[in-house]
């Protein structure tokens, strides 16, 4: 498995690799919703929607709470932080990239000055 990003982030990105699940996150960004209303909105069976919500819940992107007979879903903290985390993952990649580039540039400068000295 590719360790492109940190493991907790892997899990949330994986959960978000599905278009319906991204749609659910978008919808919950506008306000809490019950599983029933999500199933209606995405034209899906209750069982199907429950599975998607479970994946999101395990990734920490969604929190659910049962009140009476209704299970309500809302965005988990990770859902709100996903963008910041993505930026952070990108920053780490670019930092490592540019550190490596920096080293190569130092080598090149060294070679140039060696060349001009001889």
């Amino acid at each position, binding site marked *: *498995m*590719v*360790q*492109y*990003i940190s493991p907790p982030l*892997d*899990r*949330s*990105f*994986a*959960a*978000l*690799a*599905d278009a319906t*699940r*991204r749609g659910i*996150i978008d919808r919950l960004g506008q306000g809490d919703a019950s599983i029933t209303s999500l199933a209606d909105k995405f034209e899906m069976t209750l069982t199907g929607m429950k*599975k998607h919500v*479970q*994946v999101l819940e*395990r*990734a920490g992107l969604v929190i659910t709470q049962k009140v009476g007979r209704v299970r309500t879903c809302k965005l988990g903290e990770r859902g709100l932080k*996903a*963008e910041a985390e*993505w*930026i952070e*993952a*990108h*920053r*780490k*990649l*670019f*930092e*490592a*990239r*540019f*550190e*490596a*580039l*920096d*080293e*190569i*540039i*130092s080598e*090149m*400068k060294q070679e*140039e000055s060696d060349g001009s000295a001889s």
Partner: protein
Amino acid sequence: MDQQVSSAGGAQNRTSVERRGDRELVVTRTFNAPPSTVYKAWSQPELFQRWWLPKSVSGVSLVSCDMDVRTGGKYRLEFSAGGSDTMAFYGKYLEVVPNERIVWTNDEGEEGAVTTVTFEDQGGKTLLNFYEVYPSKEALEEALQGSAAALPEQLEQLGELLSSIGE
């Protein structure tokens, strides 16, 4: 163009990454060498492949690197995560001005970003600006949420794996 990096700078060269507006991601950094040197490290495949995908972070290694760095030229980077599968990033150079700027497309996805890198001379140092501009707000959101920016196929497979575990 709206610069956020102060030219005063300290000894530390910092990499900054920020989202700008709805469709743009910007990365900046200063290098202690003139633009001609930084450009060379960016445009010569044998140098480029030594830094573009640092293994410590990406966990992948480049298996091939073809770059025809001139306006209209193409590139194709193939890399492997250790198994037999390879993945490719490819596209076309829309504009190449040696020592100043390189603009290229990212054609592996449907709504790929157009990437621009500029090299600005700052008294013998180089201020490097790296811009990824997505075709729409939605495409950037998609990238932010992982499927376009990182490794689409692996993520899709992971997604399927997670769904199947959920059953």
